[in-house]
Every structure is written in structure tokens, then in C-alpha cells.
């Protein structure tokens, strides 16, 4: 009893957070039962008719579903690889810059888009690749016909991948740079005495030095295989490029909010959440084992 009274303020402090989490995080989890219902908003979770796995069979047999799943995986895999390679190259190049102000300036410029919204960046990208935008200006000056970038499935997919790398590469770059800075400077001095050039120093000291961080970043990104970038694609795509850029999240959004097929949409959502949970559990366990990484 005495213990309870002593700990009472701590419980009280947690109360607002607990209430909000129960409603807005656990509420929707419980709401996933609608994936097994013929859900009607008016009847709610309790009175809607139960249909077992019908929603799943229905969705998995939709003609578009396989394409959507394929798009999701292709787009996110490309993004995952580029999010490691591009920042790594940038970090290695920046590490060779000796003037601090220059390095700082480049870092800031590369990092800026990370903090801008997809509405702004989407608007920028659409102007850039429009029929009479600067990119088509270059295409025309090379003597070709202008390309309808935003209406061509292959180009559009590339633009989705490229613009996300543009927005997000600063993050991993900063993390990798921080790791490079943390490498013991005496290692480089010793290598120099032994006559190793800058290239050899990079291959034998810098890369092994940041290998743990690279592995950690790649392992953690594996949990995102089914997240291809919802807000980005939603703001930039149009019906002509559904074939190449419609992903699970945008598919769920249209199925639920426009077609009002709440049950099937929730079924796809559940499918995605379960796979993601599995991947995240595996990758966090791996990161913990390999790198002693913990979030708490």
C-alpha cells in the first residue's frame, strides 16, 4: 500500500499518454477486426457481418494486386540500395574536404530537402519535369522530342526513386560522416608512416571502420520493404502511372476512402502490418545481436 502511494504520481504522469495511446494506437489495432467483416460504418465493429477470410481472397484475386505488390517491392528495394550507396559516396568525398566551412556548407545544402514537405518537393519535381520544364529544355537542346516524364511509367518510377533519394540522402550521410569522424586518427597516422596512400587508407581503415554502421543502417531499413513512400507517391502520381507506381499504401487509400471498401482495404493493411512486424522483429533482433543496438 505504501509502495502504491509512493508510485502514484508516476502512474498519474503516464495517464494522459496511456489514454491517448489506448484510443489512437490500440483502438485502430482492435479495429483491424474489420478485415474479417463486411464492414459498414453505420453498424460499426460490433454489428457488421463476419465474413472470415473473404476480404483477403477478394483482394488477393483483384487483377491489380500482384502489380501493386511488385511495384512496392521494386521501388523500396531500389530506394534501400541507393540510400546506402549514395550517402556513403557523399560521406567519403566530404571526408576528404579539408576546409571546414566548405564541408559544412555542402552538408547543409544536401540536408535541406529532408526538412521540406512532400507537397513542396512534389510541386518542385512536377515543375522540373513538366513538358516545358528545365529537364525537357535539356532534352530539346539535345535534339530530341520532349518527354512526358510524369505520364510515362518507367520514367515516373525513376523520378519517384530519385526524388526520394534527393530528399532523404542527407540523413544517412550525416550518420556515416559522424561514424567516420569517430575513427581513431592514430590509425591513419600509422598507415601514412607505413606508406599507404589515401586510397589504401580509405579501403583499409575508413570502410572497415564504418562497416558496423553501414550494416546497422541496412539491417534496420529491411523493415521498410513494404513502405515505398506513401505521401510522396500520393502527391506525385496520376492514373496514367498507376501501373508502374501504385503501391500497397496508395492502393489501400483508394480502396478504402474512394471505393468505400473498408473491409478489403483493412485486410490489405493487416497483411502489410503483419509482414512488416515480422521483418522489423527479425531485423531488430539481428541488429541487437550483431551491433548491440537497442532503442531503449
Amino acid at each position, binding site marked *: 500500500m505504501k509502495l502504491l502511494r509512493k508510485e502514484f*504520481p*508516476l502512474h498519474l*504522469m*503516464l495517464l494522459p499518454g496511456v489514454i491517448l495511446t489506448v484510443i489512437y494506437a490500440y483502438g485502430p489495432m482492435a479495429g483491424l477486426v474489420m478485415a474479417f467483416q463486411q464492414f459498414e460504418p453505420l453498424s460499426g465493429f460490433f454489428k457488421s457481418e463476419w465474413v472470415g477470410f473473404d476480404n483477403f481472397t477478394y483482394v488477393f484475386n483483384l487483377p491489380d494486386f500482384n502489380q501493386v505488390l511488385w511495384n512496392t517491392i521494386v521501388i523500396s528495394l531500389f530506394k534501400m540500395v541507393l540510400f546506402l550507396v549514395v550517402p556513403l559516396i557523399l560521406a567519403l568525398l566530404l571526408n576528404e574536404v579539408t576546409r571546414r566551412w566548405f564541408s559544412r556548407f*555542402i552538408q547543409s545544402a544536401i540536408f535541406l530537402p529532408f526538412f521540406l*514537405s512532400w507537397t513542396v518537393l512534389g*510541386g518542385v519535381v512536377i515543375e522540373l519535369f513538366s513538358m516545358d520544364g528545365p529537364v525537357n529544355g535539356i532534352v530539346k537542346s539535345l535534339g530530341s522530342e520532349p518527354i512526358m516524364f510524369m505520364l510515362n511509367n518507367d520514367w515516373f518510377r525513376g523520378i519517384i526513386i530519385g526524388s526520394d533519394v534527393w530528399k532523404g540522402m542527407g540523413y544517412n550521410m550525416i550518420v556515416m560522416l559522424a561514424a567516420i569522424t569517430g575513427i581513431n586518427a592514430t590509425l591513419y597516422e600509422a598507415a601514412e608512416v607505413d606508406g599507404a596512400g589515401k586510397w589504401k587508407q580509405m579501403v583499409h581503415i575508413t570502410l572497415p571502420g564504418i562497416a558496423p554502421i553501414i550494416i546497422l543502417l541496412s539491417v534496420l531499413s529491411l523493415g521498410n520493404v513494404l513502405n515505398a513512400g506513401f505521401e510522396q507517391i500520393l*502527391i506525385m502520381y*496520376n492514373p496514367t502511372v498507376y501501373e508502374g507506381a501504385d503501391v500497397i499504401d496508395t492502393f489501400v487509400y483508394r480502396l478504402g476512402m474512394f471505393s468505400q471498401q473498408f473491409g478489403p482495404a483493412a485486410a490489405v493493411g493487416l497483411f502489410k502490418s503483419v509482414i512488416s512486424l515480422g521483418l522489423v522483429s527479425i531485423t531488430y533482433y539481428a541488429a541487437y545481436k550483431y551491433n548491440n543496438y537497442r532503442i531503449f
Partner: protein
Amino acid sequence: MLHKPSLSRRMFIVLNTLLLTLITVLGIVPFVHLLSISLSSNTAAMAGEVKLWPVGFSIDAYMFLGEKVEFFRSLWVSIERVVLGTAVNMFLVFITAFPLARPNSQFKYRTVYVWFFAITMFFGGGLIPTYIVVKNTGIMDSIWALILPGALNVWNMVLMLNFFRSIPRELDEAATIDGAGYWRILWQIYLPVSLPSIATIGLFTIVGHWNAWFDGILYMNSPDKYPLQTYLSTLITAINSQMSSMSPEQLKSMENLSEKTLRTAQIFMGALPIMLVYPFLQKYFVKGMTVGSVKE
């Protein structure tokens, strides 16, 4: 450096500097292009003559923007959202992290609570069930729909928690001996020493609220309650949906109709606040990133 760098080394430095400058320029050009369109005459912008600098310089778009009711109405919603949302978020982060930073010996149920919050980081109900829950809690179409569902950001809470853990235990042991309860320790000891962390997390929260647009689409029925970024997103999706059902010739005339300079002026204004504060607060931006990402 004791010895003079070799010729190949000097060549590398020059090339590296050029390459990094080029990458930076490429990253900035899209924004310059956007700004140039907004500062050009409407005819030049429509004809697609504007590339890197304004053609037929004109601030008409910005003058017109000054009278645009939708713009200022949504700007006000955004300001309201940022102020109220950040206050709520920060309060919850602070008050929730404190009990969870106690050692298990002081707080018996700590582990239970930690798992309760942590689970929501790895599993969620997804879009459709969340929408139904928000709808059922009766906050649709009010500013609370943009604030309450994400009011407790568990990731930020973990950052705060880790910071609290680094505060010397002696500090609150001394306070306890002097008879201070948990509330007093929270407000009079933890609050003052954690101001830098609060500033960093707060900055991210502000940027997050300013940039968010999709929840506005989802939870606001009437466009006059849209925050700025949601309003901007409607400008962009309007072009997208028109674009996909048109031939190249129609595409050209459609761009004429869409008030290109005004649209770009508004998009630019959506990015301006962040671009303005970014150079001065960059230190905090970077700190916030690296604090959360890698822990040894």
C-alpha cells in the same frame, strides 16, 4: 601536413571540390527554378521560357497572393496547429518520459508501461481502422483531429527518456532527501536541465506539424479547415488528375489555365519558413538526427 601533397592528390582535391559543388548546385537548382517561375511574368511562365532566372520580372504573383483568402486562411490553421500541436506533443513527451526513466527499483511497473508504448512503434492498425477510430471519437473537422492521433510521439519520447537517463542520479536523490516529490523533481530539476533536448525535439515537432498534409485531407471535410500544406497539396493533385487525361497539346493549354506563377509562389511560401530558420538552427537539426540514430 609536413610534406607537400603530391600532384595526384592535388588533382583529386580539385576534382572533389568541383564534384561536390556540382551536386550541391543540382540540389539547389530545383528551388531556384520554382522561385524564378513565381517571379516571372505570367506569359513567360506559361510559355515555358523560365529556366533558371525570372523572365519578365514581376512580383504580381506575390501581390495577388496577398489577396488570396484560401492561402491566408490555411496559413492561420497551420499556425494554430503548430502552436497548439507542439505544446501538446512536448508536454506529453516530457511527462511520459519521466516515469519511464526511473529505475525499476523505484517504479515497479515500469517494464509493463515500456512495452505498452513500444509495441505501438512496431505494429499499428493502419490507415483505414485509424480513420474509423478518429471518426468515432468525434473530432473530425476540428483542429484536434490533426493533433490528438499523433499526440504522443513514442520515438521522441524515447529520445527524451534516454536524455533523462543521462542526468546524474545524485541530483534527484538530493532533492528527495530535501523532501521534494516526483512532481517537484520533474518541474524544478528536470525541466531546467533538459531545455536543450526540449529545444531539439521541439524543433522537429514544429517542422513535423508544419509539413504534415495528408491528415488534413483525411480528417478535414471542409477545405476552409485545411492547414497550409494540405491546401498546397490540392493545388498539386489538381494538375495531376487533369494531366493524365490529356494529349500533349491539351497539356500545354491546361498549364496556361492553372495560374502557374501563383501556384509556384504559394508552394515557395510553404517552404520559406523552414528555409529561413534552417541556416541558423542547422546545428540543432543535425544534433536531433544523430542523437536518435546510432547508439553504441
